[in-house]
């Protein structure tokens, strides 16, 4: 039996080290067994557990069970297990090792009971995820990984300043609860208000909130087929967990969430890269969760947590399906794919299951979680929010639920006839496909992990009819508007344009300006030097100023002038010192 007085992250940390040191079957066994041990550990934690120790003058709470710790830790562990299975034939061990470090630290965050241990696990996550991106071992991945790391370390610094200021202002490292409804706390001159905002910004950067969402679509599509599966699971959802713990009921999150929802949709509609579409749909789906956190009722927050569970699983399935296509064809653009249903039958079926789940089709996991959030908006009479959530729910089917499987597996035949991927990849997809469907039929195990007594009943005739109308008519629009949805060989600019192009050009411009100033200065220096040399030469030559014979009287005059200046300075300095 595992020592219970430890964070459940420990299994993953040990696994990360062992995977790096072992080879072959041994590594496979570790990859598959350690997440299961972690799952057992999580499920046997006593509900009142507090693993604490003293550090400096603080009591660090390494493990405590917060409201949504169990559901997030469970789904993180499942995602790590399925991702590990999917990555089993990955030749480079560093990716799995980094992925387990990453998974472990995400689990560390959800059990952290104070701001210090939360922050430490949060930063290890950045290291693990950056290493996962770099494991793809391409030039593009290295560059995107560096940009990813830089942005996340900036986010970490902002968070760190926020936490430090908060601890200074309140003298407590306990997990606080903030309510941010508007910007007033920034301007009322209190340190705690600024601290709260810095913490919010630090967390929102990891959630992929505007304007810092471009790191997602920049870095994730450059990861390896299995790397993207791990990446999609942890960072943004850990941020959702932290928002659920620290910022629930903050109105500002409703606006942030709604913005993300439509941001994801618009960019996904414009996109041609199959995995980048799935990444934009992360921003979109996390937007739903953040809106739920912002509404802040028990139903909406339970909806956000349940949707995080559903989302991690179906997004893993979608990215595995896309990853299998990439793995077998080495192609990632819709414009190069099509007609793959002829030969990749199982991958196609799994992709469709994932697409149905993300669209919240009845009897899938998405259907038991996402409608909780819009129903909560209706209960709170938030009309605009409800209409926007409903419109977005319809659009999800169009921009990813249909777009992804249609352009990869159907549409015009590309002539490619790749086989289904190796067995371990198929098994991983099969496993997550089951977890996409099972909760849709029997949601109780998911609801049991939520807060309070969940009485929500998703599978009613009314829900079925309204949801099917919403989705199928969105499908009608998809097929009728095909000419407008044609894929183009383009990318779309995002906020990172400012630091990838504008700042780059700005720096180049500054460099040019600096060079121009330097050359002018150099010219001036030479001109002055030339002039002085000529002057010195002219006074030093025979009969020049210095060679002249001067009368004694002139010398005496100059000596007395110097003496007067000296005396003046002497007394004056005394006077200044005395006046101080």
């Amino acid at each position, binding site marked *: 039996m595992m020592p219970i007085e430890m964070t459940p992250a420990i299994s993953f940390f040990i696994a990360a080290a062992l995977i790096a040191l072992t080879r072959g079957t041994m590594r496979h066994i570790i990859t598959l067994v350690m997440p299961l041990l972690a799952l057992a550990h999580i499920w046997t934690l006593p509900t009142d557990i507090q693993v604490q120790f003293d550090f400096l003058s603080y009591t660090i709470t390494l493990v405590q069970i917060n409201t949504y710790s169990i559901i997030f830790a469970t789904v993180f562990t499942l995602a790590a297990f399925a991702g590990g299975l999917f990555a089993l034939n990955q030749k480079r061990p560093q990716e799995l090792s980094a992925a387990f470090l990453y998974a472990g630290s995400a689990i560390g965050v959800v059990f952290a009971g104070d701001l210090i241990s939360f922050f430490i696990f949060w930063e290890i996550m950045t290291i693990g995820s950056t290493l996962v991106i770099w494991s793809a071992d391409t*030039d593009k991945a290295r*560059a995107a990984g560096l940009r990813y790391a830089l942005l996340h370390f900036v986010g970490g610094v902002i968070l760190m300043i926020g936490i430090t200021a908060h601890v200074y202002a309140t003298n407590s490292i306990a997990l606080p609860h903030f309510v941010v409804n508007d910007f007033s706390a920034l301007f009322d001159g209190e340190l705690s208000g600024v601290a709260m905002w810095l913490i919010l910004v630090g967390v929102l950067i990891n959630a992929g909130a505007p304007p810092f969402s471009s790191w997602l679509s920049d870095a994730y599509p450059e990861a390896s087929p299995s790397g993207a599966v791990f990446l999609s699971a942890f960072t943004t959802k850990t941020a959702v967990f932290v928002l659920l713990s620290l910022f629930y009921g903050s109105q500002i999150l409703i606006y942030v969430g709604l913005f993300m929802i*439509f941001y994801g*949709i*618009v960019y996904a*509609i*414009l996109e041609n890269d199959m995995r980048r579409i799935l990444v934009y749909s992360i921003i979109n789906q996390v937007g739903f969760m953040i809106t739920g956190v912002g509404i802040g009722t028990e139903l909406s927050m339970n909806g956000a947590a349940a949707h995080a569970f559903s989302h991690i699983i179906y997004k893993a399935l979608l990215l595995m399906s896309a990853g299998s296509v990439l793995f077998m064809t080495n192609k990632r653009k819709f414009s190069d794919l099509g*007609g793959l249903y002829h030969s990749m039958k199982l991958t196609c079926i799994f992709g469709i299951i994932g697409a149905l789940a993300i669209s919240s089709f009845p009897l899938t996991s998405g259907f038991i979680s996402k409608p909780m959030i819009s129903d909560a908006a*209706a*209960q709170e*009479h938030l*009309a605009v929010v*409800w*209409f926007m959530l*409903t*419109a977005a729910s*319809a*659009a999800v089917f*169009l921009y990813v639920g249909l777009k992804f499987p249609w352009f990869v597996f*159907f*549409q*015009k*035949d590309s002539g490619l006839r790749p086989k289904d991927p190796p067995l371990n990849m198929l098994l991983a997809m099969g496993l997550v496909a089951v977890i996409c469907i099972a909760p849709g039929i029997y949601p109780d195990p998911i609801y049991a992990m939520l807060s309070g007594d969940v009485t929500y009943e998703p599978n009613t*005739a*009314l829900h*079925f*009819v*309204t*949801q*099917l*109308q*919403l*989705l*199928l*008519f*969105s*499908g*009608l*629009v*998809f*097929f*009728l*508007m*095909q*000419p*407008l*949805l044609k894929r*183009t*060989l*383009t*990318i*779309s*600019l*995002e906020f990172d344009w400012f630091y*990838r*192009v504008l700042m*780059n*050009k700005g720096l*180049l411009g500054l460099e040019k300006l600096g060079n121009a100033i330097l050359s002018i200065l150099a010219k001036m220096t030479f001109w002055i030097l030339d002039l002085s040399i000529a002057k010195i030469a002219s006074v030093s030559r025979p009969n020049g100023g210095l060679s002249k014979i001067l009368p004694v009287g002139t010398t005496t005059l100059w000596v007395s002038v110097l003496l007067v200046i000296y005396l003046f300075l002497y007394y004056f300095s005394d006077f200044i010192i005395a006046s101080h």
Partner: protein
Amino acid sequence: MPKIIKKLLAASEEYTDFSPRQIARYWLIFVCILLATLIAQFFVHPHPHFGIDGLFSFHAWFSVLTCVGIVVLSKLLGFWLKRPEDYYEKNHDAN
């Protein structure tokens, strides 16, 4: 067969590899399912929250209107945001 349906079927051939017979059959099935979801509404009891969502087939026409709106909006934003694929490489961002 009305002209508009012929046009729709011909357009569908542009973006699939299904045979014209298959396309006609799939469209027929799809339209039947759409009608079925509309008819099904007579057998459930709606609980409108905001009035307008209690109107007949609200979710169907609201879906069509907003999806068309979103596609058109995206397309318009695309004119402003889209760049060639090698845009960043050309802007000294290769490393």
